């Protein structure tokens, strides 16, 4: 008697192991967010009320939908990215809601919480659309030069007359019909796509270097062309938009991608030297940038503290974080509203005050984990374009986090960027969730031995 079973074709079933892990982590993330929101209510209102669900459920619901979509369309996508993004976004919402309650208790009216929830829903929906409608990582490669035009266009938009807006000294916004938007946030995605696509085609020639001078291999003059172009563009951004952070973000991104693509450290040396020189010269001639430098180096001097656009905000943020100390005051226990823009640019100071150094470390570790998941895609993906794209997008998150939190903690001068996923602001949420979507999409196509499992 023959074994019937042995003659049947083997049933091949995909076990969505990553998705099961993700489901578990998502439950955990939603639980943490629920805990944060209830702590806020108990601390400030001293009673729980159903308003909690308004802030908890929409992002949670969207996360579950994203999870479902991935089960169908991207079952091998990285399991940690979505839960980490959700937990950060939820923490931001909880802190913004907490600040709103404080504002209302003090007789204020300007609240950001509901807006933040709406933008989160929109942003997560767009991330879902990315996963569904961007069929493969290679799809984006078709639009490399379109991305360049979109990126440059978005970058320059705030300088246009009528719609360009100057807020707090930086020309980073556009305003249409009462809505403000920071197009630079979206530009970083388009530019990453462009850089990745461009470098994949040019990496061979960029990697060829010319003569050796003083032990350094100097690139041929014509290969320096693109670097000079991007350098000039970022200086234009610095001069016209008056923001060091934005300028540093794009230039840093480009340098890292050039280095990753070519393996030539000389580009990093040349690029950084050029950028630092440019920034120093600019700070010498532009009072605004120079003032920010001075506020960074000597924030506690009374003159800088009192100056218009001086170090008041920075110093108050530091006071807030110091107030939180090691353990923090607990959500709702601090006085974060003493810092201007506590809900957006300085949300990390608000969180540092209320969650303490312990919470600060937890947030930094979450970002580090998120970025490392992205870099991991860069390590494992077989396709060079995808490697560069994943590396670039992850590095953008890392660098932006560094510039913002570093600005608040005085590692670097303060700039007008926002903390990814945490800070109040629609453009930032939208851009970062698109990045999450793209990273998830690319991570699904890594392939390798673990794609299917024979049963």
């Amino acid at each position, binding site marked *: 008697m023959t074994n019937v079973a042995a003659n049947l074709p083997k049933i091949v079933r995909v076990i969505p192991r990553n998705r099961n892990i993700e489901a578990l982590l998502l439950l955990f993330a939603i639980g943490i967010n629920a805990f944060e929101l209830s702590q806020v209510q108990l601390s400030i209102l001293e009673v729980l009320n159903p308003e909690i669900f308004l802030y908890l459920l929409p992002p949670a619901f969207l996360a579950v939908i994203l999870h479902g979509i991935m089960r169908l369309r991207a079952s091998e996508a990285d399991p940690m990215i979505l839960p980490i993004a959700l937990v950060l976004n939820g923490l931001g919402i909880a802190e913004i809601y907490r600040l709103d309650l404080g504002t209302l208790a003090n007789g204020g009216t300007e609240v950001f919480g509901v807006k933040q929830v709406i933008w989160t829903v929109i942003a997560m929906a767009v991330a879902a659309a990315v996963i569904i409608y961007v069929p493969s990582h290679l799809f984006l490669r078709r639009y490399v030069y379109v991305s360049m035009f979109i990126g440059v266009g978005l970058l320059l938009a705030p300088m246009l007359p009528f719609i360009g807006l100057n807020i707090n000294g930086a020309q980073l916004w556009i305003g249409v019909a009462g809505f403000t938007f920071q197009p630079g946030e979206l530009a970083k995605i388009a530019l990453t796509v462009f850089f990745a696509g461009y470098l994949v085609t040019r990496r061979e020639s960029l990697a060829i270097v010319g003569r050796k001078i003083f032990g350094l291999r100097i690139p041929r003059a014509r290969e320096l062309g693109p670097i000079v172009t991007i350098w000039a563009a970022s200086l234009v951004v610095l001069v016209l938009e008056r923001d060091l952070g934005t300028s540093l973000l794009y230039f840093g991104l480009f340098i890292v991608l050039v280095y990753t693509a070519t393996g030539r450290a000389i580009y990093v040396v040349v690029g950084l030297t050029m950028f630092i020189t440019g920034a120093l010269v600019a700070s010498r001639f532009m009072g605004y940038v120079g003032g920010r430098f001075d506020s960074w180096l000597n924030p506690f001097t009374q003159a800088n503290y009192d100056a218009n656009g001086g170090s008041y905000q920075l110093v108050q943020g530091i006071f807030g*974080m110091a107030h939180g100390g090691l353990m923090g005051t607990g959500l709702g226990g601090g006085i974060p509203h003493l810092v201007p823009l506590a809900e957006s640019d300085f949300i990390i100071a608000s969180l540092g005050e209320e969650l303490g150094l312990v919470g600060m470390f937890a947030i930094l570790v979450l970002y580090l984990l998120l970025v490392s998941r992205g870099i991991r895609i860069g390590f494992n993906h077989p396709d060079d374009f995808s490697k560069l794209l994943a590396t670039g997008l992850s590095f953008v998150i890392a660098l932006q986090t560094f510039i913002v939190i570093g600005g608040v903690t005085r590692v670097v001068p303060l700039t007008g960027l926002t903390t990814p996923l945490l800070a109040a602001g629609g453009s930032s949420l939208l851009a970062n969730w698109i990045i999450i979507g793209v990273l998830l999409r690319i991570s699904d196509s890594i392939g390798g031995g673990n794609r299917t499992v024979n049963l």
Partner: protein
Amino acid sequence: MKRELKRVSIVIFIMFLSLFVASTGIQVIGADTYSADQRNVRSIYDSYKTQRGAILVDGQPIAQSVKSDDVYRYTRRYDSPMYSAITGFFSIYQGSTGLESAMNSYLTGQNSSQFFEQISALLSGNPVTGGAVELTINPKVQKAAWDALGDKAGAVVALDPKTGNILAMVSKPAWDANLLSVHDGQTSNANYNKLLAAKSAPLLNRAYTELYAPGSVFKIVVSTAAIDSGKYQPDSRFPNPAKLTLPGTTTYIQNSGEGRCGSATTVSIADALRLSCNIPFAQLGVAIGQNTIADQAAKFGFGKTVKFPMTSTASIYPSNMDDAQTALSSFGQYDVRVTPLQMAMVSAAVANGGQLMKPNLVEAVYSSNLSILNQPSPEVFSQAMSADTAAKVRDMMIGAVARGVSGNGAIPGVSVAGKTGTAQNGKGEPYTLWFTGFAPANNPQVAVAVVIANGGGMGQSGRGNSLAAPVAQKVMRAVLGK
């Protein structure tokens, strides 16, 4: 690309590492410094959320937070203006000064030593309670200083020379800190502006932040410098003219009696100090040189701020003087400027065998459950001179009180060492009157400095011995119980 990606990962890791380090620097290492910053109003808000700790003298509160019916829940209540130079004020609108500011982290319960209380508060949900600060002040001595100064503008600082503990610290005119701790902003601001505008300048702290010309009390510093150098003894003699033309100038100086210092043709350093003559000290100062005096002054604490825990103004001995200026500075004129705290430290160093103890105002800090959070132990500030020099300078100061022009510091039955000063402040300006000294001379229990500003209301006719010495005498008697 793997090698490059590894390096990029390292760069990212370093970026985050710097954030970990920077936030630790702010939230743990620098936290106490930042919370003490005057511009940081958080601790003020906090203090209204928790009960701020009391400031105690001999177990009795001189400043405490009592329950109030408004949103702030507690209001700060001060016992008496007698302590205004110590406590400073604590105000919602004007921030805080004095001890209220210097000990703020303890008073609000936010000091790192109160970590376990913070944890238990975190777990129990109760607010942190502030620590209570017990002072080294002796209330009897404080009261004696307060009464003795009367309505004259000036200050008294009394130290225990063996420990550096501050026994009394008074500045007059004083003010009522309750005027500024009121919760109503308009009242508080109006009161503050009134105090600021007052001609008597009550908000100036004359005990440790205001600087005065020391006049003859500075001769103690010059004598110490000369004797400690080993080149001079108390009986070293100098020419004794009635007038001395300053080197390199045509102006001359005189002794305060406008005659010679005793009848002999030469005069000893001891006699010059006893009779407080300017001409011998001018010669002595030029002979030992400004660098020797400057080094000695620095050992006494000149040029340094002292945290006790409030921060004093640094006293000044000028540098780069020519010989004429050195001569003037040797009897405490020209640009020499001191705080009363500094002069009390000078006497305390002589009293304590040359060893200067760091001034200290805090006896102990107690947590809300009365366990001791912090108990400063006596610290040596410097060895200002050898024990031998200290004994010689002490004997000279005993002579000044017993047989000299500082006689109003004398206490019957007690050997007192002391020195008066009457400093000129320019043409027509009222004098600054001084006494500094210690008692009993052979086993000192108190070193004191008294300054009376604006000539004690007597223009240029008051003298250190007539106005300042009696105040110091009463303060010393209060310490000795005589």
